[in-house]
C-alpha cells in the first residue's frame, strides 16, 4: 500500500470571526487509493478538528459531499487523489452562500425543489384494495434516468445561468419535475407547468450543457430541460389556438 504526500488548499470561513473566506493549506500523507473526502477526514481527525464539511455515504449515492475541487464541481468521495497533480484546491460548492468552511446554505434549492412538486399526483387514484399501479419496462425507461438524481447540486454549481440569475429554478428541479411528468402513473403535469414553464423555469436555460457534464449520476438535466421547453411550446400553441383541448 503506497503513500503520497499531498497538499490541500481549503477555503475556510468562520462567520463568528471572519469577514470573508480565506484559504488554508494542509500538507498530509495520504494513501494512494484515497479520495479527497478521505484526505479531509484525515485532516479533521488528526490535524484540524475545526474543519467543517458535509458527507455521509462515501459512495456517491447520498449527494452530501458536493464541493469545488480544482474549480470543478465534484463529489469529494468520487474525486480520486491520483487524478490530481500539485496542490489540490477545495472550495464550497459554487453559487450557494457559504455557511461555514465547506458547508453551503442550500435553502434555495430545497425551496425550488418543493415548488415543482416532485411527487406522484396519480392520474387515476387507486384504492389500496385495487392493487398496485402497473408499469411496463418501456414505461419505466421513459423516466428512469431522471429518477437517478441524488440532489447533490453539482449542476447548480456548474450552471452559469443559475450563477448570474439566482431566480432560475435550476437543472435538478426541472429534471425532477420532468421525471414525474414522464411517469405513466402521474397526472400532475398541468400542476407543475406554472413553475417549470415560467420565465424562471426552463426558459432561463440557454443549453450550456455543463449541468449534464458534471452530473455524477448521468441524469442529463440539460436534455430534460429542452424536452420541457418543447412541451411548454406545444402547450402554449394549444392553449391559444385550440383552447378547448385539455393540456
Amino acid at each position: 500500500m503506497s503513500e503520497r504526500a499531498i497538499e490541500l488548499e481549503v477555503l475556510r470561513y468562520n462567520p463568528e470571526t471572519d469577514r470573508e473566506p480565506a484559504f488554508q493549506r494542509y500538507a498530509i500523507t495520504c494513501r494512494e487509493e484515497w479520495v479527497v473526502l478521505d484526505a479531509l477526514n484525515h485532516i479533521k481527525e488528526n490535524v484540524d478538528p475545526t474543519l467543517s464539511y458535509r458527507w455521509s455515504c462515501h459512495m456517491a449515492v447520498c449527494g452530501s459531499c458536493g464541493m469545488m475541487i480544482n474549480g470543478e464541481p465534484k463529489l469529494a468521495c468520487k474525486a480520486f487523489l491520483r487524478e490530481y497533480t500539485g496542490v489540490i484546491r477545495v472550495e464550497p460548492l459554487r453559487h450557494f452562500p457559504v455557511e461555514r468552511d465547506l458547508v453551503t446554505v442550500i435553502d434555495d434549492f430545497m425551496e425550488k425543489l418543493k415548488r415543482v412538486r416532485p411527487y406522484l399526483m396519480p392520474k387515476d387514484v387507486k384504492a389500496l384494495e385495487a392493487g398496485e399501479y402497473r408499469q411496463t419496462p418501456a414505461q419505466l425507461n421513459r423516466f428512469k434516468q431522471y429518477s437517478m438524481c441524488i440532489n447533490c447540486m453539482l449542476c447548480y454549481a456548474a450552471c452559469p445561468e443559475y450563477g448570474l440569475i439566482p431566480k432560475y429554478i435550476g437543472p435538478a428541479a426541472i429534471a425532477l419535475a420532468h421525471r414525474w411528468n414522464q411517469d405513466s402513473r402521474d397526472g400532475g403535469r398541468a400542476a407543475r407547468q406554472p413553475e417549470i414553464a415560467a420565465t424562471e423555469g426552463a426558459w432561463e436555460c440557454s443549453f450550456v450543457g455543463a449541468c449534464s457534464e458534471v452530473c455524477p449520476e448521468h441524469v442529463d438535466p440539460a436534455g430534460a430541460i429542452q424536452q420541457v421547453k418543447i412541451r411548454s411550446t406545444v402547450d402554449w400553441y394549444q392553449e391559444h389556438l385550440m383552447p378547448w383541448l385539455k393540456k
Partner: protein
Amino acid sequence: MSRKPYVRPVTAEWIFRHPRYVRYMVREFSCLFIGSWTLLMVWGLKQLAEGRAAWSVFLDVLKTPESVVFHVLALAFAAYHSVTWFRLAPKALPVQRGEDFVADGVISGAHFAVWAVLSAAVLLLAGAF
C-alpha cells in the same frame, strides 16, 4: 446562533473557468455573425427591389475583401453553431422504440443528412452545378 452566510460575487471570469464555457460562448457569439448576415440579406433584398443599379452596388459590396473575410467567418461560426446544435438534438428529441431509445447518432445523422440535401438543393437552384 451567529450565522452570517457569505455570498461569493459572480464575475465574468466564469467563461474562462473551463473549456466547455469558452466553447459555449463561441457558439453563442455566432449569433452576431448570423444576425449581421441576415441584415445584409435584408439590405440586399431592398437593393434588388430598387432595380439593376442598386443591385449592382450590392454585388460590388459583396465582392470586397472585407465582405469576403466577413462571409468566411460567418460561415465558420454558422457551421459551428449548426454542428453543435445537431449533435445536441438527440437530447431534446428522444425517440423511444419499445424499451430502448434510438441511438443519438441516428437522430444527429438524420439532421446532418437533411442539411446536406437542402444545401445541395440550394446550390443546384443557384446554378452551382
